[in-house]
């Protein structure tokens, strides 16, 4: 039990550690996002060739794809912590899952929103019941359902377990989104999302896209850990160390 993993599984030891890591993630997030935006707008071609050229609006890709990747990745991480919580009954794991959900929901909404704004000029419609759009919308509802179910149950332990089960069942949507392409060959049928590979993307576009993805990842670490610290304070409010922390940090506590 002397492994560092068990040591940091305690909220009391993880709280200050998270506090030290958050500023690093903020700096990395800001730096990467600024670099990605600069590269995406000034070092990429204005149009993508082909018989059906993608004009300037393809630049939405620098938010759309990273946001969509984050929406799936954060869901997998959230389910991972929820499962660890169910199996090992560790408090901090459930709190992690709770802290990730709102950020995941935001990125899922962003993927849908930017997709609509990209779809209008390139496909002529804001929305279609394409398999990938539909499954991403269900993922958004799963995030909302997880948050709503958790907040609807007063007993925190029961809320943790019920919401974790819902999240685990919903995990089925992630591979569905990933492989949801109903038309492998765009010459045969009208395909909204087509099969693609990272190797087929122009170098500068791929670079900006990946930099933005890592920027969003760092942003997610920063926001999830900040939210986690709030959850730890609320749930451990009766412990000695939280009371000491509140006395040291709190705007009201500072006066006493």
């Amino acid at each position, binding site marked *: 039990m002397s492994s560092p993993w068990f040591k940091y599984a305690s909220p009391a030891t993880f709280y200050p550690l998270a506090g030290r890591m958050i500023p690093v993630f903020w700096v990395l997030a800001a730096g990467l996002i600024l670099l990605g935006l600069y590269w995406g707008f000034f070092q990429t071609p204005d149009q993508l060739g082909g018989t059906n050229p993608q*004009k300037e609006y393809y630049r*939405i890709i620098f938010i759309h794809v990273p946001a969509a990747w984050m929406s799936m990745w954060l869901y997998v991480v959230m389910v991972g912590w929820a499962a660890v919580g169910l199996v090992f009954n560790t408090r901090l794991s459930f709190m992690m899952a709770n802290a990730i959900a709102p950020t995941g929901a935001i990125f899922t909404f962003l993927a849908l929103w930017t997709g609509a704004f990209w779809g209008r000029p390139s496909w002529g419609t804001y929305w279609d019941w394409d398999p990938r759009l539909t499954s991403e919308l269900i993922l958004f509802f799963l995030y909302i359902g997880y948050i709503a179910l958790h907040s609807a149950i007063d007993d925190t332990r029961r809320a943790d377990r019920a919401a974790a089960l819902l999240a685990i069942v919903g995990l089925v949507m992630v591979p569905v989104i990933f492989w949801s392409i109903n038309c492998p060959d765009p010459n045969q049928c009208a395909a909204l999302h087509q099969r693609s590979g990272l190797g087929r993307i122009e170098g500068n576009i791929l670079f900006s896209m990946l930099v933005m993805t890592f920027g969003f990842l760092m942003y997610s670490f920063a926001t999830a850990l900040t939210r986690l610290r709030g959850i730890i304070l609320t749930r451990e409010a009766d412990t000695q160390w939280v009371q000491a922390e509140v006395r040291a940090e709190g*705007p009201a506590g500072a006066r006493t």
Partner: protein
Amino acid sequence: MGPGGGSGRGPSGGADMMEFLNQGGYAGFVWGSYGMALALLVAEVVGLRRQRRTILTRLGRLLRLRTPGGHP
């Protein structure tokens, strides 16, 4: 941007800026996407800061209520 003089730089810089903002006529779609991303991320960060202050204030009040003679 053209080289040299301050008089030449202003208009051409402005034209570059307009061209950039116009995004080839797709300004609404491009900035609509980036604007929503910016708005949501800023809202989340502001919300988290406010939440943290609220929690600390609330716990601080509870603490002073429970500690006898703890209030100033």
